[in-house]
């Protein structure tokens, strides 16, 4: 009897191990997601300060009713120094310099864009919002501990005092960071955005889809419907299985060795990136397409054949349309994986500082993951937040895509 008790205990212990393993795995998912979200969500907002600006016509050297071009040509440096002197008249020159450092260093450009949008501001005093510098932004968001010794932080005690004063007077605002979504990479975390990398990813995936989808479908049709079993067919099968297991970085080496060095295609472009990713996506789509083709019942083929359809007509009129939902699901999954792929793109130079949003696949570009990699390598704390925010965007995109594919499968998948 004691034996049985022992066995029962062992049973319970074993089950506990299982529960432990599952909960730990779930915990990892939770930690990862909570961590990324909590550190990244702030990146969608930015800290800004309200400040009164006097758009003095003389300081800007502008005529009455200036044109946009004239405003664009005007220098706002003097106007900014003047306004800082006005607003903080009680402080010394040196102190004003320090106060200025609380703001984004391109405050003159921000002022300029306000005037461009609102020419009526000329000669008026207006209270406007200005982006805070990344250091103060991080302190305001609580990402940086302000209580560490003064020497270890970039914001000194005097600057902190001014910041506290701003808070008391209600001049600190947290606003939606629109710039993050519409601008490209930048040396300053304040103005860096994901637009160029999002566009790079879009082009890359588009190329990847355009190449891999048709080729994979044709290859699957041949293998499932036409190929007679033989050595070539076996060889193809083996190769498809192998390709699915080749580390992604090897595909990058292929792109570098063949596409760039041998065929001389342009480096760092979405075109080459998409081609490399399509090599990786092909096996995934082929596997999905073939299993969907196999799932189409033979009775459909027989029905069409009996009406006098040729083999090609049977395949293209009946079998392929029926295999489409399954193929598309596989394609979405394959493409979603390609979106997150980084290593092969490093090989072909799609890790570069790209400020402009690319407008064709032939321009140098980075993808979202490569942008994440680039930002995470940079030392500034502001960029770490940007990285997490970019990861959030990427994850949300992947989750949405996954839901779409699940929905797709549920809606169109036929049980025969």
């Amino acid at each position: 009897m004691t034996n049985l008790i022992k066995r029962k205990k062992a049973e319970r212990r074993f089950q506990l191990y299982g529960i432990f393993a599952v909960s730990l795995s779930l915990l990892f998912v939770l930690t990862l997601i909570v961590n990324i979200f909590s550190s990244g969500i702030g990146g969608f907002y930015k800290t800004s300060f309200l400040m009164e600006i006097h758009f003095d016509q003389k300081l800007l050297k502008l005529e009455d009713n200036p044109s946009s071009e004239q405003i664009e040509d005007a220098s706002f440096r003097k106007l900014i120094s003047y306004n800082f002197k006005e607003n903080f008249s009680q402080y010394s020159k040196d102190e004003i310099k320090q106060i200025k450092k609380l703001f984004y260093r391109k405050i003159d450009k921000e002022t300029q864009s306000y005037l461009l949008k609102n020419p009526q501001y000329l000669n008026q005093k207006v209270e406007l919002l200005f982006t805070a510098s990344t250091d103060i932004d991080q302190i305001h968001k609580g990402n940086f501990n302000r209580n560490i010794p003064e020497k270890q932080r970039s914001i000194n005690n005097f600057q902190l005092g001014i910041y506290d004063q701003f808070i008391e007077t209600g001049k600190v605002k947290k606003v939606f960071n629109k710039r993050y979504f519409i601008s490209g990479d930048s040396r300053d975390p304040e103005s860096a955005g994901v637009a160029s990398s999002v566009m790079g990813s879009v082009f890359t995936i588009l190329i990847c889809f355009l190449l891999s989808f048709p080729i994979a479908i044709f290859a699957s049709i041949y293998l499932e419907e036409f190929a007679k079993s033989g050595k070539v067919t076996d060889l193809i099968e083996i190769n498809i299985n192998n390709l699915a297991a080749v580390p992604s970085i090897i595909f990058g080496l292929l792109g570098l060795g063949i596409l760039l060095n041998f065929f001389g295609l342009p480096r760092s472009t979405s075109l080459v990136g998409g081609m490399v990713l399509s090599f990786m996506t092909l096996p995934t789509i082929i596997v999905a397409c073939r299993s969907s083709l196999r799932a189409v019942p033979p009775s459909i083929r027989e029905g069409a054949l009996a009406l006098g359809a040729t083999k090609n007509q049977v395949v293209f009129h009946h079998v392929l349309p029926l295999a489409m939902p399954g193929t598309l699901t596989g394609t979405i999954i394959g493409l979603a994986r390609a979106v997150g792929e980084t290593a092969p793109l490093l090989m072909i130079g799609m890790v570069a500082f790209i400020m402009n949003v690319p407008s064709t696949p032939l321009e140098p570009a980075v993808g979202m993951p490569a942008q994440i990699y680039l930002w995470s390598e940079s030392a500034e704390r502001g960029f770490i937040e940007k990285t997490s925010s970019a990861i959030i965007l990427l994850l949300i995109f992947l989750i949405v895509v996954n839901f779409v594919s699940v929905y797709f499968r549920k809606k169109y998948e036929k049980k025969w």
Partner: protein
Amino acid sequence: MLYPVLFLLLLSVVGFYLNKNKSVYLSKNQKLASLPAYYGYLAFLYIFVPAIIIWLGLLIGKSFILQNYLILTLGDSLSIMNSDEINLFMSKVKNLSLGISFGNETDLEKFAAEKIISFDKIFSLLTYLVLTLSSILAFLIARKKVIPNFKSQRTVEKIVNRFIQICSLIAILITLGIFLSLVFETLNFFSYVNPLHFLFGLNWSPNKAFVIDSAETIDKDILRDAFGIIPLLGGTLLIAFLAMIVAIPLGLMSAIYLAEYAPKKIRDFSKPVIEILAGIPTVVYGFFAALVVAPKIVMLGKSMGFEVSSESALAAGLVMGVMIIPFVSSLSDDVINAVPQSLRDGSYALGATKSETIIKVILPSALPGIIGSFLLAISRAIGETMIVVMAASLQANLTINPLEPATTITTQIVTALTGDTEFDNPKTLVAFALGLTLFFITLFLNYFALKIVKKYREIYD
């Protein structure tokens, strides 16, 4: 660049309609062997297929023709350059012709750039001319085929079938491409470094090659000691091993629990959630490993009195392990589910508890499949790049201490090929030798894993 393709498509569509209309007209009086549309498709394919091949040929041949054209026109000035100088000259001139100027071009280069621009114009004009001519010729042939007893459907289908057959060969082509590109550059690398020194060398310090490069003399004795793969292999295996320590018990136990114990609700919830881990891009794991896990480990180590490197193998290994959990668990899940219920029933009927059944009956009979899945997971860990690039060290270090920094094959490939890449330097070329090694290791692992899994499946199918 793509305009000629659009142009061709346009011509082909025109050909389609011309032929179709003619056959529709013919079919009013007599029955044709195929539907009118197939005579149209015939024209489309006759025009498009040869022309697109010609276009691709021109595209590939263009830079070659251009080079020869320049050498012909600038003959004397180029003849004094060696091949490296010519390459440099070419790339500079090409940039200049695209409007990218660094302001330091010589008159010769400017002259050559103008030549390129005029060459481009003539070449593209010629391209269109050739394409149009070939299209007209092809159309005339297709036009002749619009006769009642020509079975155009047969011909069209033959062409289509040949085309999809070629598509299916692409998998072979890619493998071949991988193999050739790796082998070619690896051989190039071996012209600098003895393969034996590469495969069995205990020292990895490719920066030595840098020094040599600047001195412009290649001293094989120094190279001999710079490119030993053993420390990289050691680091790779160490990190993969750490990953397996995390992934195997957690993945396997999760699979067992979810397959055998968990109520349906928990299973339906947990499986997809754990699989999220597999869908997260590796760059995210890398970020997490480098910025969250590594500092935590350093802190923890400090509080326990250990000296932990901030680029320790441990951080990369642990995070990689987490990434691989769903890989192990879903593969093991398949294997466990494939064990026939009759085996379980037999064991229960003897009075065994569930865990006894699992440990003594299910696992042993599923063992080959599970080992296969482990091998696949290991191959995944060895080939993983981003996590180690971001969290592991660049410094080669032959150690089995997970608290010390370690580097991997993939990290070194990335380091060798990012930034300036010149292909006449062993420091760059070594990436391909590393890639080839990696390719063989993973191929080998996969081959065995699939073989084991297949054999196992045959037993129960």
